[in-house]
């Protein structure tokens, strides 16, 4: 069965007065219907830009989509004329954003904002759309929905605002829901609730979900597969369990081991040395080599491509063997 969404060699750059920022440098992946993909990486690695590019929401100067294809059910979205993108947005692919306070119009009622999505995409008339909006608000767990339709965003709490955003996004039953760090700004307890909500909705509507985060803990509950991004490249991709248990790329190893764990009480917190890459002047070879503890001379000159090491599990690194080696000896010494 052909995948629902296929991204091929997507490249996005920003032309600024300080230089060209190569935000996304040729990434490819697929997404099946109803599947959940986690997109993980630190700030600035290109994960948000890559999904905004799919919806053509990148501001055109200074940004520009330099190449690649994004196939939704076989149709290349990047070839679509800009003025027809609205047919895709909201109805086929929907998106929720990180900060619900600034992402909602402060002078428009929540009800109107949710109804607006249905009015423009499904052609519903206002009254019906508002009724549906009330239903959706109830569905996402907001009590007294019909009263709250006439409230404004600032009258909601953070978690409720995010729920409203979710209601807005799923109102037209899109095939793909993109969630760009929706829980980053929320309390830990609310985070779990939001994740569960999305999971429920996903099953109910058979939606594919792309969940972007820098927090591996959040993604663990939700994703079936993970793409790890660094400096605009996908450096590792694979099913969630094997990736967590046996990460192949040094960056992933660093990410996972820097998660504080409750039982390691007398160990120093590990971290990844160095600082995030300068996206204008990316180093030659592998973008991670300046910070990598497994690096060899080859890493500084030749950039590795994704290679498969286990079914569905790929990494872009010359020294995977060494990584696995050190990892298994570490596990042995821990007495796993």
């Amino acid at each position, binding site marked *: 069965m052909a995948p629902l969404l296929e991204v091929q060699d997507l490249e996005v750059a920003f032309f600024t007065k300080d230089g060209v920022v190569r935000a996304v440098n040729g990434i490819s992946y697929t997404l099946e219907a109803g599947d959940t993909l986690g997109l993980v990486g630190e700030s600035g690695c290109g994960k948000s830009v890559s999904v905004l590019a799919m919806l053509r929401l990148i501001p055109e100067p200074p940004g520009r989509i330099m190449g690649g294809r994004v196939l939704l059910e076989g149709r290349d979205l990047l070839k679509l004329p800009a003025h027809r993108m609205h047919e895709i947005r909201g109805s086929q692919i929907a998106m929720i954003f990180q900060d619900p306070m600034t992402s909602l119009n402060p002078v428009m009622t929540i009800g109107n904002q949710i109804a607006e999505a249905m009015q423009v995409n499904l052609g519903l008339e206002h009254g019906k759309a508002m009724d549906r909006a009330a239903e959706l608000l109830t569905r996402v767990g907001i009590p007294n929905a019909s009263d709250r339709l006439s409230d404004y965003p600032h009258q909601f709490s953070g978690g409720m605002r995010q729920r409203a955003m979710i209601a807005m996004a799923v109102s037209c039953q899109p095939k793909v829901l993109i969630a760009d760090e929706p829980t980053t700004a929320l309390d830990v307890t609310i985070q779990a609730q939001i994740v569960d909500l999305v999971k429920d909705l996903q099953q109910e509507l058979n939606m594919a979900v792309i969940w972007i985060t820098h927090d591996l803990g959040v993604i663990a509950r939700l994703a079936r597969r993970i793409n790890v991004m660094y400096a605009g490249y996908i450096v590792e991709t694979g099913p969630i369990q094997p990736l967590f248990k046996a990460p192949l790329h040094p960056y992933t190893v660093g990410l996972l081991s820097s998660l504080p764990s409750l039982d390691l009480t007398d160990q120093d917190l590990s971290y990844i*040395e*160095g*600082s995030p890459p300068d996206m204008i002047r990316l180093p030659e070879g592998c973008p991670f080599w*300046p*910070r*990598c503890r497994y*690096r*060899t*001379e080859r890493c500084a000159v030749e950039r590795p491509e994704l290679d498969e090491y286990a079914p569905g599990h790929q990494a872009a690194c010359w020294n995977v063997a060494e990584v696995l080696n050190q990892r298994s000896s570490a596990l042995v010494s821990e007495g796993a």
Partner: protein
Amino acid sequence: MTSLTGHLGAPVVEERVRHAGFWAGAWRRYRRNLLAMYGLVFVVFILIVGIFAPWLAPYSYNKVNLDHALEPPSAAYPLGTDQLGRDMLSRIMYAARPMLLVGFVTQIFAQLIGVPMGIIAGYAGGALDWIVTRLIDFFSALPWYLVVLYLVMVLRPSLENLILALTITSWVGPCRVVRGLTLSVREQDYVDAAQALGIPTRLILKNHIFPQAAPLLLWSFAVGIPTSVFAEAGLSFLGMGVRPPNPSWGMMLGEAGQWWIYRPHMFIFPGLMITLSVLAFQGLADGLRTAIDVNVNI
């Protein structure tokens, strides 16, 4: 397989970070602004003209010569003469002085009054802040030019009184700006930390608040000048500013009386100078604003 390690065995990270100081970066941003650069050049130019007027001007600003009254520009009088036969070029040069004087001195005084009040109000809060805020409201209740006009009228028109009147209406600007900044800085955790460590207030003010205030104050100084320059021109135009025979561009416009329609040089040159000056100072302030990236919360 050799690995690259520096001393202590840590991986060597090669970075060449360009360390730009704050002011260096500000200058770079300033340079990009065309209007700001014009402003800078013109202000320097007019400073030179004003300061060196006695040496640069071909005639005295006061030399009355009724034989040559109301003459259009000629070789002897490049910008023509006014109704009393005085050379326009020389008068225009000398007229830079009151403008510069009023512009700069007013703002200096305004800052001297407004800044301490703003800092005290912002930092101490409570009753002091309340008083200062009431004062700010009070002094903002009327449009500045009415207050200045009235004061100058009542106190007898003169340059000193003009400066006094303008200071009274201008101190509010820097005060507001500084108070806003102090209020927001005071909320910061590092101020709490400093207080917890027992650091005396004046050191907190000196080390934490003032360095952040400095660029802002420079900007508020610059931003007040166009208004002062405009005020000097306008009031002298009405006959309320500089006293004759001292020249001022505004006064020259006012003095042009009925003759200027036949001798346009009498209004073109003073008018041009006023406009160019206000524009220059405006550009200076605008450039400073983008250069130091001011985010003023009043």
